[in-house]
């Protein structure tokens, strides 16, 4: 018994170096396989979530994403809607985009993004909209609109 344990121990220890080599050498392929087989994705909090609709302005496009709720416990705080403008090179200096947020706004709600400064302003902001953030990406501009969750799903058009 002691001898078997000893042989198994050495065998397992001998596998340590091959495991090291395999984990480093195959990580790219293994990684792709892992993603494919599990269907795992990056959390929508970072990606902005799936695109709900796209508005074509001719020279540039506006992608409005689905609303993303934070946290495992729904209604924990806020949800957010990402609006993405691309391509960066074709964007006007001032973008004025109408957003239809059916559950939160009564009138026409506009966001105004200054692509020179990243400054965001709004018109007819509903009470439930709590914050804006804008960020420049290599290929465009993203604006995140934070919405207070009030027990109902909020989606842009």
């Amino acid at each position, binding site marked *: 018994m002691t001898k078997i344990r000893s042989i198994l121990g050495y065998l397992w220890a001998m596998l340590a170096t091959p495991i090291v080599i395999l984990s*480093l*050498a195959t990580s790219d392929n293994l*990684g792709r396989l*892992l993603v494919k087989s599990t269907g795992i994705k*990056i*959390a929508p909090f*970072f990606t902005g979530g799936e695109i709900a609709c796209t508005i074509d302005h001719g020279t540039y496009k506006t992608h409005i994403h689905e609303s993303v709720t934070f946290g495992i416990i729904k209604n924990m705080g806020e949800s957010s809607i990402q609006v993405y403008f691309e391509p960066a090179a074709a964007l006007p200096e001032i973008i004025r985009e109408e957003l239809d947020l059916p559950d939160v706004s009564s009138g026409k709600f506009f966001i105004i993004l200054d692509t020179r400064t990243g400054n965001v302003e709004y018109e007819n902001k509903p009470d439930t909209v709590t914050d804006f953030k804008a960020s420049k990406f290599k290929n465009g501009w993203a604006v995140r609109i934070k919405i207070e969750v009030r027990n109902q799903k909020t989606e842009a058009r």
Partner: protein
Amino acid sequence: MENKFRFNVKTLLLALPMLLMTAFALTKGKWPQDWHHRMAFILTYAAFNAAFLLTLITGKIDRWRLILYVAVAFFFIISVLGNMNEIYGSPPLPDFEFRLNTPLCPVVIPFLLIPAALTKTVIWPGALTDSFASITFIFIMWLGASISLGRGFCSWVCFWGGADDLFSRLLPKPVIKKMPGWCKDLPFAILLVFVLLSTLWLVPVYCAWLCPVKPLAELPAERFVRDMSMWGFHLALFITIVVILPILTKKRTHCAYFCPLGVLQRSAEFINSFNLRIDAEKCVKCGTCINSCNVSAVSEELRDKGQREKTCTKCGRCIDRCPTGAIHFHVKGTGTDSNRILSKMLFIYSAFGFLAMFGGSICMDGIYRIILFITTGSFSQ
């Protein structure tokens, strides 16, 4: 001494697999195209293999490991800042939630696991594959390191550990002799609380709020005033936990008493095949091992039982220092009369292999960026 090898053909043959492994890992099978990369490769390759040869010839493990491990920590900072610059352009970085392709830090892995199982999403602003330190690359690397080295991850693989390992060696004697007892439980508490918070909020809260090593890898983000104060807080944590306390206590305070991944690495000891044994017959109870261990893994009680705690990072320092050669690497399952040289070589090959292949590629990128900076004035292409 049984521990050492003479410098001869046999020893060179013993080092040959390491020469081949590192050559392949650092070049990915292709000779570097431009002279910046060639230079970085030659320097890295020579340094790591010279250190391996010296480990064999001198019989000292920690002495050579420490030099390389600290180098990895240093070049990692240059490498990651250069890569961040390539991904996002010059600082400031975009707000945390607007980031994509951020390299994954292994320390956040414990906080990603439950949310991934529950939501099938990774709560990290990185790329899943095909990117510098992509999520799957770091995850698979961490898994491989945990299986083959257990908590040895924390002295041979993790690019953060070099900082407090170095600072814990600066003074000849500790100014603060003993850490309070509750410190040992602190990393467990941090792990539990932040796993819970990350699962509830689906955001890596530890990274955003508490991580002391964060300021080394990223500069303040867009919302300057708020982020400067947050960044300042992280920096204060870094200076306290990773610099001042390790100097004063001669302990790796971040790794022994704070880091949540370090706790997880202890559980990897159950599947890993190597541990350390103290030969009671050879031990003269001088206490050198207890005093020299910078993660408090040896106590008098454990030493007398011939064991050490699961917090042991297998750095090899106590082995190097023990005056009677009583401490040695041991393959679990084998008896007390097991072959010490074989056990040591099996461990050293996997640990050094990881350090040279993973850490080596970090050093190579860091050296490349320094050469680039000297010749072009920029750390990135």
